[in-house]
């Protein structure tokens, strides 16, 4: 439809409009809290307005229509003639959702339907029967004249203002023998303002009473009248002539286009860069190890230099992938708002530490688990307003999202001040549902009772609600977090609320691992899962409930033989690496612990796809291959260890 509709322009629009729309969600929620905030109203209005403008050029009519209606409503609100109440906010948020869908459709090259009339009606300022806004009182501009203005009118208007000259030009006094006579000018004014009424000095010219007060022909005649037929354009301001555009007056470099502080980069290119930087790290590792072996001082110096540069590069490149966790958080106000309306609960959402940086891939990967935790807090954690009042709490429940960096990990918590969890109830439910037996239940301490919520098949809700019961349990959340190399823990206090704490490694691209040797094989264990390392003392190995355990720190630590898993024959090693995998603590027996290393994980390719517990491979400093383990894969979905890990002896 539009000759300029090229994919490049579309991509630019999608990126820019996407940003606007993303902010829009937050802004709308903010607007609901303070519907009179004029700055916010303006920003929201402008966002719809801007997207509409761009969509117009791309000839995406459904998007234009949708934005136009939202913009209309906001415009009436903006001039203070309407308050955005909850129902109008519902409509606006629905419009936002639809707009997001449309942007996705545009990106995917799919066709899109016009927005449903029902939504457009609800967006209409007069949408709810008889609540039409009062006519806008315009003290300055007399007849509001909703009709569009056409070119002829505009030209006539300019004429009436400047007498045929250009604004800012020297006052066009009717030259003798010039272009316009007093009579002609009078008739023009009559034409514009009706006979007799003249635009006073303090009174602006009134707009023509009908959109077609002047026809195009009349206007042409008028122009002729003004300029004289065939009047040559003056020499001062020549009409633009493409073929004779003047040479650059000054070097364009003096002040180039406004400073662009950011550049959009395709994430694939960013990932490629991270990849290359990762390879450099590997070469660096090899070089350092070579230099150490040869004892060559100059080589060692160069290697040390490379070490420093590669480190800085790695940090910088990884930094580029970082995004503030606020990007993850920003979708939650909307979810909380919708959910609390649906549940009939009053909720205040508090966010802390939004500026904490997180790897981009984690921002995306954590979105679903976080949504689930928040749903859970609202649905199960918080009480109904009346129940809260009876318990002596404020009607409004509080959910706090906070993020912070602790060493190599990012910790995100979802805390509610709701009813908290009762360990006894959890214990009983778990037994009822057959998750554990009576004996196991009796052995659980308070914290372990809370951990029961992460077991498959466990749900404390008496009825599966629409909110949390979407076939996804907390166990799935925990598994997903574990896949990301993270942990999920729960604390609770009866009557005071619960806190779920999610910890994930800072970055996914380069993993900090503990290199261990099992037989002749090297294994890289993600350091974020490693709790400690110790050497087994004689007699520390024991049998308990048919399993091999080690008495460690006053508790029984289940032992597993990594040698059995990688197919190394012979006796298991005596070094124990204590790993936490989801809610499981496991002591892995290895032959040697070699030390920490930063590695870049390379996928193994389709042949090895689906091999449990293998994340990929990496090249070590001395050029050997090591398998990088995905520890979440060591235990099956039922929490049982893989059979090959069992120690037979």
């Amino acid at each position, binding site marked *: 439809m539009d000759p300029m509709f090229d994919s490049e322009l579309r991509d630019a629009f999608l990126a820019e409009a996407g940003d606007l729309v993303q902010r829009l969600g937050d802004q709308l929620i903010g607007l609901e809290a303070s519907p009179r905030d004029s700055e916010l109203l303006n920003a929201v209005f402008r966002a719809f307005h801007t997207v509409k403008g761009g969509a117009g050029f791309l000839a995406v009519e459904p998007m234009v229509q949708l934005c136009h209606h939202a913009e209309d409503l906001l415009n009436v609100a903006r001039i203070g003639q309407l308050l955005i109440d909850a129902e109008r906010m519902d409509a606006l948020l629905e419009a936002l959702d639809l707009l997001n869908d449309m942007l996705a459709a545009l990106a995917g090259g799919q066709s899109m339907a016009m927005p449903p009339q029902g939504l457009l009606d609800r967006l209409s300022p007069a949408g709810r029967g008889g609540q039409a806004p009062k006519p806008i009182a315009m003290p300055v501009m007399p007849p509001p004249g909703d009709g569009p203005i056409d070119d002829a009118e*505009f030209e006539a208007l300019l004429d009436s203002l400047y007498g045929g000259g250009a604004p800012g030009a020297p006052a066009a006094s009717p030259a003798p023998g010039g272009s316009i006579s007093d009579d002609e000018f009078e008739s023009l004014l009559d034409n514009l303002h009706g006979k007799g009424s003249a635009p006073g000095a303090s009174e602006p010219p009134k707009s023509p009473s009908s959109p077609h007060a002047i026809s195009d022909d009349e206007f042409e005649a008028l122009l002729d009248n003004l300029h004289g037929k065939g009047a040559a354009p*003056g020499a001062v301001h020549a009409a633009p002539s493409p073929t004779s555009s003047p040479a650059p007056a000054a070097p364009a470099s003096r002040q180039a286009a406004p400073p662009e502080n950011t550049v959009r980069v395709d994430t694939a290119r960013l990932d490629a860069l991270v990849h290359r930087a990762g390879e450099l790290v590997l070469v660096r590792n090899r070089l350092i190890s070579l230099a150490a072996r040869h004892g060559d001082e100059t080589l060692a110096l160069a290697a040390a230099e490379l070490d420093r540069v590669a480190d800085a590069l790695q940090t910088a490149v990884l930094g580029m992938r970082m995004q503030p966790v606020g990007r993850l958080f920003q979708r939650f106000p909307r979810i909380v708002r919708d959910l609390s309306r649906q549940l009939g609960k009053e909720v205040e959402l508090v966010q802390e530490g939004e500026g904490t940086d997180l790897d981009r891939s984690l921002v995306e990967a954590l979105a679903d688990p976080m949504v689930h935790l928040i749903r859970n807090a609202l649905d199960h954690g918080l009480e109904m307003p009346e129940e809260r009042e009876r318990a002596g709490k404020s009607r409004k429940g509080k959910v706090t999202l906070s993020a912070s960096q602790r060493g190599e990990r990012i910790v995100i918590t979802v805390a509610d001040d709701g009813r908290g969890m009762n360990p006894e109830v959890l214990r009983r439910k778990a037994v009822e549902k057959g998750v554990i037996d009576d004996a196991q239940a009796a052995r659980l301490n308070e914290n372990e009772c809370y951990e029961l919520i992460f077991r498959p098949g466990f749900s404390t809700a008496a009825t599966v609600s629409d909110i949390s019961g979407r076939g996804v349990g907390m166990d799935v959340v925990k598994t997903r977090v574990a896949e990301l190399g993270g942990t999920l823990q729960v604390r609770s206090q009866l009557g005071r609320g619960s806190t779920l704490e999610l910890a994930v490694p800072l970055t996914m691209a380069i993993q900090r691992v503990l290199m261990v040797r099992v037989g002749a094989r090297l294994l890289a264990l993600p350091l974020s899962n490693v709790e400690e390392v110790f050497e087994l003392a004689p007699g520390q190995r024991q049998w308990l409930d048919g399993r091999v355990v080690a008495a460690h720190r006053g508790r029984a630590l289940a032992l597993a033989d990594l040698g059995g898993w990688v197919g190394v024959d012979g006796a298991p090693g005596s070094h124990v690496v204590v790993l936490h995998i989801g809610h499981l603590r496991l002591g892995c027996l290895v032959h040697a612990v070699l030390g920490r290393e930063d590695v870049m994980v390379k996928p193994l390719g389709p042949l090895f796809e689906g091999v449990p517990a293998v994340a990929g491979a990496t090249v070590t400093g001395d050029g050997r291959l090591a398998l990088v383990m995905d520890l979440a894969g060591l235990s099956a979905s039922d929490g049982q260890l893989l059979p090959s890990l069992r120690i037979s002896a």
Partner: protein
Amino acid sequence: MKILVVDDFSTMRRIVRNLLVELGFSNPLIQEADDGESALAMLRTNAFDMVVTDWNMPNMTGIDLLRAIRAEPALKGLPVLMVTAENNRDQIIAAAQAGVNGYIVKPFTAATLQEKLTKIFERLAASGATA
């Protein structure tokens, strides 16, 4: 012909630039600003021959930019083409009163832009002749 394109939406600046180039204007001579304030700063330091500005922008809107231009002796003769989203009579009358040279409603084609520019320059020529 040095043209300043003012819009807070970079996609829109790109569109206007493309259209101007399509009409034969020199690409390197087209510069961009993302709101009225930065536009005004650029106009004060560099000589431009025309401004094409959006109406609705944060910080300083198009109409405020227009008023600022008309209020500044060194800039007041600068032709200003206002880009609006609506063919709204009140808005356009206000813009005309503030001294706009022309307006154009989004979305527009190169041909429409040409038409608008021609009108502006015709008028400028006329006022040049009478000056």
